[in-house]
């Protein structure tokens, strides 16, 4: 991969790494974070996010002990925050895979400084996402029936026609491949950490994790082939996972769900929200750990551009949905969209529009694309907006469908809110642990994009 990046014939117009560091300096800059005692703010952050993680655990325990009724779900709104959160978290994960796999295949050299970070985010987001479909079922202790195990209880297969089953396959494949991809990419850096380790425990653990990596040419050869293959495997997953998640809705008969635009619309939205989350976290981590040299404004600006592009696709999808509803002549379909615009949930719909369509338009201007404060705020706005997008799709379609007699209104309970907050806590906790114990920037890859050293010491 470093090799592939080197072969890029295009000369970089802007340096991707500032200050012309040596290989050793790169190694130092990244490894130091893991080797030093973490800064005070890390402990404070961990205390807060850890608390929320515990709250998540408590809420889930309460849910399992009592029933789905502790949430606000009702009839007709059978899915609400649970599946909203699921789609939200799955979407967040997409940036990681896109950066590591697709940008890798497209030889986008700027990805090297951020891919590790984004991939870790993918894994943690998928972990958070997985919680919701598991716990949203009425009898979670029977959730394993969704797996294609001809189990002893009833001796029957699951229903292969159900999009929820496709979800199980899509998400589990995605989680597996992402984890492998991430871990394979980590190997050279784990070996670096092993070699630099000064305590026996660190030596042992990093040694175990690095699987005997010695950096021989043969290792590098195998490694790069494996990495390329995994990138090839991951690439369709970027598209397939959210396509299949969108099938949960598109395959149904409910107006507002039953629409063919969902797969591309969901994928674009996922990438959009994923990049927003990368920007949010990257801006913070870059600041706290002083990584300005490696994660340059160029990286951030590129991510803003991706957000602008995907934001526009999402905005276009919204418009097309409205047009299709009007053009279909189907009264149920039309009603859903009129109801979104002016119905009881119009507040959510307008939050969605404002956050997702209007806010990123600022990124047309370089001034805003290169302003840390602006991009941080907008990335958070987009995250909020994308959560609302899923909420709007799920809840506004369900709360008023075909028979007006069964129309209803969904209100979240405290448990709903705390569970979601807890999942954010879990996500951030995993992240804090990641930056504490693993190199958050791929040392070996960054080395591939800096100029050849002039007689400085070699690391790893």
């Amino acid at each position, binding site marked *: 991969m470093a090799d592939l990046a080197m072969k890029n014939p295009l000369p970089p117009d802007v340096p991707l790494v500032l200050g012309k560091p040596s290989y050793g300096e790169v190694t130092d800059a990244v490894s130091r974070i893991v080797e030093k005692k973490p800064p005070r703010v890390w402990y404070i952050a961990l205390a807060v996010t850890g608390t929320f993680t515990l709250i998540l655990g408590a809420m889930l325990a309460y849910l399992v002990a*009592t*029933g*789905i*009724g502790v949430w*606000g*779900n*009702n*009839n*007709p*709104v*059978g*899915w609400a925050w649970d599946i909203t959160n699921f789609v939200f978290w799955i979407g967040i994960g997409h940036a990681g895979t896109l950066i590591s796999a697709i940008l890798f295949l497209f030889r986008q050299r700027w990805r090297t400084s951020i891919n590790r970070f984004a991939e870790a985010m993918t894994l943690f987001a998928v972990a958070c996402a997985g919680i919701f479909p598991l716990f*949203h*079922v*009425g*009898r979670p202790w*029977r*959730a394993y*029936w*969704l797996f294609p195990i001809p189990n002893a209880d*009833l001796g*029957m*297969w*699951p*229903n292969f*026609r*159900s*999009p*929820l*089953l496709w979800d*199980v396959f899509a998400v589990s494949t995605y989680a597996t491949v992402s984890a492998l991809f991430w871990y394979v990419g980590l190997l050279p850096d784990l070996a670096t950490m092993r070699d630099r380790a000064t305590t026996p425990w660190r030596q042992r653990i990093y040694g175990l994790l690095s699987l005997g990596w010695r950096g021989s040419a043969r290792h590098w050869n195998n490694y790069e082939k494996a990495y390329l293959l995994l990138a090839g495997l991951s690439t369709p997953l970027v598209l397939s996972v959210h396509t299949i998640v969108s099938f*949960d809705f598109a*395959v*149904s*008969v*409910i107006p507002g769900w039953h629409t063919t635009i969902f797969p591309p619309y969901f994928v674009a939205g996922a990438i959009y929200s994923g990049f927003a989350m990368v920007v949010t976290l990257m801006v913070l981590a870059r600041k706290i750990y002083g990584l300005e040299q490696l994660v340059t404004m160029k990286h951030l600006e590129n991510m803003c551009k991706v957000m602008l592009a995907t934001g526009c696709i999402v905005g276009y999808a919204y418009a097309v949905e409205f047009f299709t509803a009007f053009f279909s002549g189907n*009264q*149920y379909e039309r*009603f859903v969209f009129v109801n979104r615009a002016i119905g009881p949930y119009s507040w959510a719909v307008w939050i969605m529009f404002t956050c997702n369509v209007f806010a990123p338009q600022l990124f047309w201007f370089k001034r805003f694309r290169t302003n840390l404060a602006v991009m941080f705020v907008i990335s958070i706005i987009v995250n909020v907006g994308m959560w609302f997008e899923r909420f709007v799709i799920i809840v506004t379609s*369900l709360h*008023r*469908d*075909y*028979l*007006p*007699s*069964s*129309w*209803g*209104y969904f209100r979240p309970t405290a448990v709903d809110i705390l569970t979601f907050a807890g999942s954010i806590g879990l996500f951030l906790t995993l992240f804090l642990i990641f930056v504490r114990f693993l190199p958050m920037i791929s040392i070996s890859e960054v080395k591939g994009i800096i100029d050849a050293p002039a007689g400085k010491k070699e690391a790893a």
Partner: protein
Amino acid sequence: MTPSGQNYWRSLDELAGSPGFRNWVEREFPRLASELQSKSTRRKLLQLMAASFGLAGLTACRRPEEKILPASRTAEYRIPGKPVHYATSMNLGGCATGLIVETHEGRPTKIEGNPLHPGSLGACSALAQASVLGLYDPDRSRFPRKRGKRSSWADYAAFAEELFTPARQGRGEKLWFLSEPLSSPSLEALRADVLRRFPAARWVEFESVPFAAVNRGAELAFGQPLEAVFDFARADIILSLDCDFLGHDWRDVIPIRQFSERRRVDSPASKMNRLYSVESLFTLTGAAADHRLALPSSQVLGFARELAEELGALPRKAETKAGGAGRQRWLSVVARDLREHTGACLVVAGPRQPAPVHALAHVLNARLGNVGRTVAYLRPSSRPALAGFDELCQAIQSNAVETLVMLGVNPVYAAPAEAGFGDLLAKVAHSIHLGAEFDETADASAWHVNEAHYLESWGDTRAYDGTAALQQPMIQPLFDGKTAAEVLSFAGGQSERRSYDILRKHWLAQWPQTEGESRWRKALHDGVVEGTRYPLAAPGVPDVKRVDATARVAGTQGVEVTFFADSSSFDGRFANNGWLQETPDPMTKLTWDNAALVSPAKAQSLGVRDGDIIALTRGGNSLEIPVLIVPGQADESIAIALGYGRRQCGRVGRGVGQNANLIRSLVTPGFVSGVTISKTVRKRPLATTQEHHSMEGRPLIREATLEEYRRDPKFAHKADHYKDLFSLHKEHSYEEGPQWGMAIDLSACVGCNACVVACQAENNVPIVGREQVRRGREMHWIRVDRYYSGDPEAPRAVMQPVACQHCENAPCETVCPVAATTHSPEGLNDMAYNRCVGTRYCANNCPYKVRRFNFFDLNKGVDEIGKMVFNPDVTVRMRGVMEKCTYCVQRIQEKKIQARAEGGRPLKDGEILTACQQTCPASAIVFGDLKDPNSKVAQLKQKDRNYVMLGEINIRPRTSYLARLRNPHPELG
């Protein structure tokens, strides 16, 4: 200790009497809590609890002691697991419905109408359906009490033997009786005995929900006591004067049966009746009416007078013209229509109206030649001279009452507050109350005797036409309750003390000695006693002068408040019945509450919105009650349901709603005027099961006038803009076995809710409570959707029962990841509860939203007694699983097995009845085999009015609807 059980304890907490356990007991047995606080805690606790917990050992084997005969063929070869059916009857406010009760191993579980009984004809109401839950109400009174302290029947018997002697009572000068209107031949005979023994004793028939005015009106018109009987089926034109004969103004379901017969239109050539309704609140009758005039109840007398004058039944008086031109035109069209249908029309006045309105209705019917055709007069059994409730109050006031026996009534709650009966009762030395609950009256009485439920009692009843029916117990009284006859027997001077003996003696005396035993058996078997219908009476010519003189129209004074029997709690007697509390009001869809129903215009002028609490003040009593805005309510009229705001009640009904009796009047029980309204700042959000009331122009209920139908018999299909739909999935072949389907005639359905409760009883559908209904989590498998349409000033309402439609291409089935809902070869959309993991995807994807999810473990709190009501043929669902209508698959299987056992004979059409179908008074629901071209359902599906909802999604529902028809007068449009 109990006769059958040991003394069980359930936990160490219970033995030790820990605070947590005491807390639990306090919730469970509120009246015992004070006992527990006293010093001798542990011993006392065990004594008290032993009796209660002993019942845990009594869940079965409680067949009654006396011999009873089943309606099924083989009593002696009882097969465990096979239900046995018995005939009995239920009395409600003096009018009985004959019933067939399904029992499983000695437990009554399901109630059906008795086809042989004239007050049922096979159907029964939601109240009758739900009464079986009342039998197993753990909050029922469990033992007699003296001044609130536990006593025993033996103590009471000793007391009563001594009290009801001529030596103590003399001629009975200070002896009073208070009961519901008696409609029991044996009790009437007993009453005659009592009054013979104590000639000076007085008897009051107390009714909280007025009904007596109907017959008082007949007496006013014809000068003799007569029982008016209406035949709605023979009337081409019906005018209802504030009479909800399809809903809460009638105690049986016969009017629905008769009326709907004339709404069912076979072909464009068929005829249809026409209903005009003048009413203040929007009732089921108003919804079924072809023309409805919203008029305050106090103005109905004026309307009736004008109509009588218009038709020449009363001398014409020019000055009585009231209302605008619209009302005058309405009236003249109605008058013309009635006149044109002389002898085939019917005017019926509501029991809320005073006697003069009923007298006018009788005069009108006589004038229109309806007597002997659509209205008949029967001569009831002779009644003793009765006293009025106000006389009783005066007598107590003047210390002229020493002994007061109250039989199954709750006047402390149900009498108008202005009577102050609770305080009066304290002045009666020997107040004796017989009641199923330890209610408000029991609390204020010296003696309380716990009453047996009718399903555990011997007794008899009378239908609306006087036909007698026997009541037989299916289970030994759970709490050793007693019947009215047993309590009364002390005063009657008989030697018999058990109601079985009293009843048998009464009936055997009526029959020739040789036939006695066989007639007794036949009466028990059939559920009716032959030859007991009241004889027809010749009413003669009505006394128009007297009617004219009494029917004086007084000036109206401000806003009136009308009171109606609640569709759920009636007059409060069903307040502790969870099924009924959760059954939505058929019009307002309100559950677990009553409200002040106001019109949109009135609400605007008052500046109130749904749930705002207003205070209604009359004569020093104030009623604070939330507002519910109801289209169609007369502007100057506010309606409030009776039966709420019970103070002393079981756990279900306590604190539910507000007590309308606070502002009622003794003189005019149906409605009062001169009420002042004031706003408060408080709100009480109401729990309704339907929040949106417009059909949004969707072709869900398809409707046309009879004329339109004749012009275009296929009108129901105009909204179907699709053809040649195809499915991406492989479709089922549906070739094997019978193919089940259902057709619901929306013309016949009046929306009475009987199907909702029948389904609940048959299928063990849990209740969820007020808060969960507010969250939209009610569990009913079948619901009745009600939509308003037309001009908001004069809205129409339409009803549609909706249960699972059993789609052939069911969208729920494809999306279930674990295949928990699948299709049977017979076209049923089956639900495998034990496979369901509860993703709720199926419910989301159901376009009819008929699937119900167990958000909690809803059967968790059900105690041993409550469990006895469960139908053992239907699984009780745990939390986290989805459930829905199964087309009563257990009934299908039962009949299939039976047919197979009988030599593999084919099933007959109509042999399998779903629970909703069986009880439907309108016979609007028809179920059967679609593959049999001669089946009733297959025939209905061939009708041009037949359509399916949402056919364009290609889900191919097996339930179809027959479009609704109205028959408006051409001039009123």
